[in-house]
């Protein structure tokens, strides 16, 4: 713990239910936006989702993707810029479903996106009901500024891992840092261990 800053009392916002808000985070009701560049606007008839690096490439058009079994999930999300938002509702396709027919022995994946953004996530963090490719938020199509038409959703890691405008996964044997991970942010990003930056 640090020293006391004279005259600081804090506003003691709602600290949330016990065990739901990781250290160093505060709750918000809003949905702040963070991104490194202009919001891409990809037409749905040009959109595909691709899994590369397996025995065979798997690819879905938007219509094929939307025809896959979908799930409604309610999860808490935690941004490295310190806001957390509880009980957010998403609709999307489980990454388990997407990897189901893909033969591979990869241990890592690099998600790639419109706009050139990438992020790395271990396969074990993407499978077992822990990650989705989400296209709906609160029952509505996902807004472009929040990552629509579809974004990765990996709620147990800091939210930059939930890559916006995702277009596919590259399966890899070795971990390879993505965009923010080469720009000072942690390779793994566990909010409960405050893995925000390099060296945390």
């Amino acid at each position, binding site marked *: *713990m*640090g020293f006391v800053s004279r*005259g*600081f009392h804090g506003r003691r916002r709602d600290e949330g239910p016990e065990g739901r808000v990781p250290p160093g985070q505060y709750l918000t009701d809003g949905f702040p936006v*963070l991104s490194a*560049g202009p*919001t891409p606007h990809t037409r749905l008839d040009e959109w595909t989702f691709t899994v590369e690096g397996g025995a065979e490439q798997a690819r879905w058009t938007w219509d094929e993707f939307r025809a896959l079994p979908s799930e409604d999930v309610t999860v808490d999300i935690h941004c490295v810029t*310190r806001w957390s938002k509880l009980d957010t509702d998403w609709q999307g396709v489980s990454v388990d479903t997407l990897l189901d027919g893909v033969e591979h022995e990869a241990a890592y994946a690099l998600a790639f996106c419109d706009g050139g953004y990438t992020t790395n996530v271990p396969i074990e963090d993407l499978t077992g009901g822990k990650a989705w490719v989400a296209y709906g938020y609160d029952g509505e199509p996902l807004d472009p*500024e929040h990552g629509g038409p579809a974004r990765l959703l990996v709620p147990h890691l800091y939210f930059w891992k939930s890559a916006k405008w995702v277009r596919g996964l590259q399966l890899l044997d070795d971990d390879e840092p993505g965009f923010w991970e080469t720009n*000072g942010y942690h390779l793994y990003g566990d909010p409960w261990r405050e893995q925000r930056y390099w060296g945390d």
Partner: protein
Amino acid sequence: MTTGWLAAEAVEVRRETPRVRTIVLDVPGWPGHRAGQHLDVRLTAEDGYQAQRSYSIASAPGERPDITVEELDDGEVSPYLAEELRPGDRIEVRGPIGGWFVWGPEDGGPLLLVAGGSGVVPLMAMARHRAASGSAVPTRLLLSSRTWEDAIYRDELADLTGRGDGFEVVHTLTREQPDGWSGYARRVDDELLREVAWPAHAGARAYVCGPTSFVESVSRGLVDLGYEPGKVKTERFGPTGG
């Protein structure tokens, strides 16, 4: 590399506008920063309660890390920094953070800096860095403020313009303008961008910082003008600023 938490002493506080102050920090062990990076601030209350937020660094590389903070109505940390803190008080900081929204003379230009309100802070670090390093990269800074009183750094920006080294400032005042104001008096729209921004074929680099809606519309406007999306770097604040 980002440091762990470091003790920082406020050695000077400077009022910039009615809601904005700059805090000059003495941080033993500060590893140095690049123009455009930010740092994290941690405050601890007497009972151990802590709050952390991120703030852009306003000073040029090689200098102490100044931060310029706008008081937010619903803020927890910003009212303390913008009102309560006084010279001699101590806070904790760690940083520098971020390796994308950065600029140095070696990155070249022409350079377009577009700021909404206190979004000017990381862009000011770039402008100061440019001046301090003697760079002649042609640079335009477009600053949108509510009123002339709210225009952060306006005197220093005028001084930078007066150097005659290729630095230009364009103000737009969205809410209220002084008598005789002949500058822009509206939000940054596509037409205003077209008039102020370097033409797309100049291959300009753009840095846009401000509230989300501002950054969304400006960055989209620049892409519509033909700017390469990869050369339009954005940073947003607002609900995350606290």
